[in-house]
């Protein structure tokens, strides 16, 4: 006969320990994300002398000199507006081209399908500094150099693979039977897509649009070479920031990060939807 152990671990204890692990895990993850952002904001709001001093207080002095510098810095607001325009056009182009491609990949069999999927990914295989020179020459010759559209075309090419692959898996997850049901009820193929499939896929499409937006927002090299008077914010600031004094690095970082954070906050529920969390 086997004896029960002297100190059997009760279910409660296991559950409590599990809760601890869960809570610790969540806390670590949250701190992982929030502490750098907090440091960025706290330092951006500190006086220059405070940023380099040690030990430092945990509450910033709310000195806005560093941030004010950026808003007074010639052309930052224009650059911000350019960045938003490029990112929005990129988003529209990437989804406008990527979603139909993703749908075709998931619903139809056609010769060269595998090759097509491979080629779409291949666009990410070439480093931009290599492509930038011929692109710039072509852009100058065709007259779309230094335009929002020209840069958005390049960014859309970068974002397209993600758009195609995300929407491909999205459409694959929607049963084709739903479409067939719509056809039996009198929908044309096109109507079935717009009335049945798209509403179901919308959150995921929005999420891949967010990706396209962020890719465009973060891209520096092409933006630096292909825009002159219509600079984007990253092209305008990023190259100068890595060689600027610490307090301006923090302030500039905040200026670059905050708009992207706000945008993601605004579309967060669509982003969560892509990860399978219910649309709330």
């Amino acid at each position, binding site marked *: 006969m086997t004896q029960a152990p002297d100190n059997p671990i009760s279910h409660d204890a296991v559950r409590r320990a599990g809760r601890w692990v869960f809570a610790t895990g969540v806390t670590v993850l949250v701190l992982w994300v929030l502490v750098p952002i907090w440091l960025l904001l706290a330092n951006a709001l500190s006086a*220059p*002398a405070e940023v*380099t*001093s*040690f030990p430092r207080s945990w509450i910033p002095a709310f000195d806005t000199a560093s941030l004010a*510098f*950026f808003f007074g*810095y*010639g052309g930052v607001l224009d650059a911000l507006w350019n960045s*938003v*325009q490029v990112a*929005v*056009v990129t*988003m*529209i182009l990437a989804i406008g081209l990527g979603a139909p491609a993703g749908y075709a990949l998931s619903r139809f069999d056609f010769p060269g399908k595998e090759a097509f999927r491979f080629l779409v990914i291949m666009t990410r295989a070439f480093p931009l*500094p290599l492509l*930038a*020179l011929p692109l*710039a*020459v072509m852009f*100058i*010759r065709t007259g779309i*150099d*230094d*335009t*929002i*559209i020209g840069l958005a075309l390049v960014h859309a090419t970068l974002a397209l693979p993600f758009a195609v692959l995300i929407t491909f898996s999205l459409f694959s997850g929607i049963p084709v039977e739903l479409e067939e049901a719509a056809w039996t009820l009198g929908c044309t193929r096109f109507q079935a897509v717009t009335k049945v499939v798209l509403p179901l896929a*919308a*959150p995921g499409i*929005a999420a891949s649009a967010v990706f396209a937006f962020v890719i465009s927002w973060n891209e520096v*090299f092409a933006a*630096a*070479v292909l825009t*002159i*008077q*219509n*600079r984007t914010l990253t092209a305008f*600031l990023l*190259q*100068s*920031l*890595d*060689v*600027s*004094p*610490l307090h*301006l690095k923090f302030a*500039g970082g905040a200026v670059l990060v905050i708009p992207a954070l706000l945008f993601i906050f*605004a*579309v967060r529920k*669509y982003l969560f939807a892509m990860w399978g969390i219910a649309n709330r």
Partner: protein
Amino acid sequence: MKRILTLTALMAAALPLIPAAAQAEALFWSTQAKPVEESQAMREQVLAGFAGGVDYQGMDNGPWLTRIQAELQAGNGSIAVLGGLHGDLTGLEDGLMDLSTIDTSGIGEAMLALGALGTDQQLYLPWMQATYLMAANREALQYLPAGADLNALTYDQLIAWAAAVHEATGTPRFGFPAGPQGLRHRFFQGFLLPAYTGSTVTEFRSADAVEAWGVFGDLWAHTTPASTNYSFMQEPLLTGDVWIAFDHVARLADAFNQRPDDFVAFPAPAGPKGRAYMPVLAGLAVMKTAPDAAQSMALVEYMLRPETQIATLRATNFFPVKAVDMPADMPASVQAFAPAIATMTGAADALPALLPMGLGDKGGQFSQIYTDTFEQIILAGRPVQDVLDAQAEVLRALMVEAGAPCWAPDAPSDGPCPVN
């Protein structure tokens, strides 16, 4: 979702299809004065006085060069004036206009000659100059070895000083810009090696060079390990992590301007072959594809006026290329640096070691050899002679490939600069 869609649609509709508005502003495409504060000062204090306005853009070398090549290949462009170091502008000879019509009185002949880039035309004009200096926290001065003169230090005295500070405070407090953006390679090319070997290239693996690296190894023992993260020594000087440092004047200036009473600037130390130092020269050039050549020429001419040169000094901590009357109210950094530079360049044992010349687009690879040598000897601790022998082969291949003759302090050569 609908709201987002509507919003997106609205934004899309609001987009004008932006034709590149033809602006009369001259585009100043530069690799210098990149930090945001300096760019701002260039725009507001230096270039504001130019009729028609100037769009000043400080760029990383990669995009800077790519854009220039693109405009040259396309045969038309928007860049009015190029600004760059001597090394940035070499290699662009075919795309630059002759600037010999611009008045250059007051600029030294030797400096002007560099602007020919090996041709018989004046392809760039000197714009501003700088060098590297040592800086120390005043607290460190009490540990200066007996008999050492701050304005005439030797490398041995510097090591003894750094060791004394290390011993007294318990932490190594010599700082060196060995970070990814740091200018460590210039220290080896223009200071350490010439001071011990009298050469940058030819004597790369000589016994003298082995001694030089040994000396740097001794100094490294009293160097803060965080140095491999430092790009600008003004920051660790301000935080107090570093008490003695070497860097480019523009990268030390902030420390002096923020706390003028806490720091001293002094010349680089001397080795057996002299007090080697590296002058840095930036130039102005005009591309053949410039949209309005007359405007570009006028801008170059404007940059060389004495009052613009002084404004440039205030904005960037780069010194004028011609003699100008300095006003009394210059920033603290200028007041600290000017005498130190004068002492260094005027020292009896002064040994100027120029920036690499004639390497074209191989300048980056050239510097990489010195950085690699440093990393292998000092950071990885490999045997000095083995590393020097291996890197000397790389260096020789590079000099032959570039076909670059020797530059000072190496003796002039007929063919590519030899590596013994």
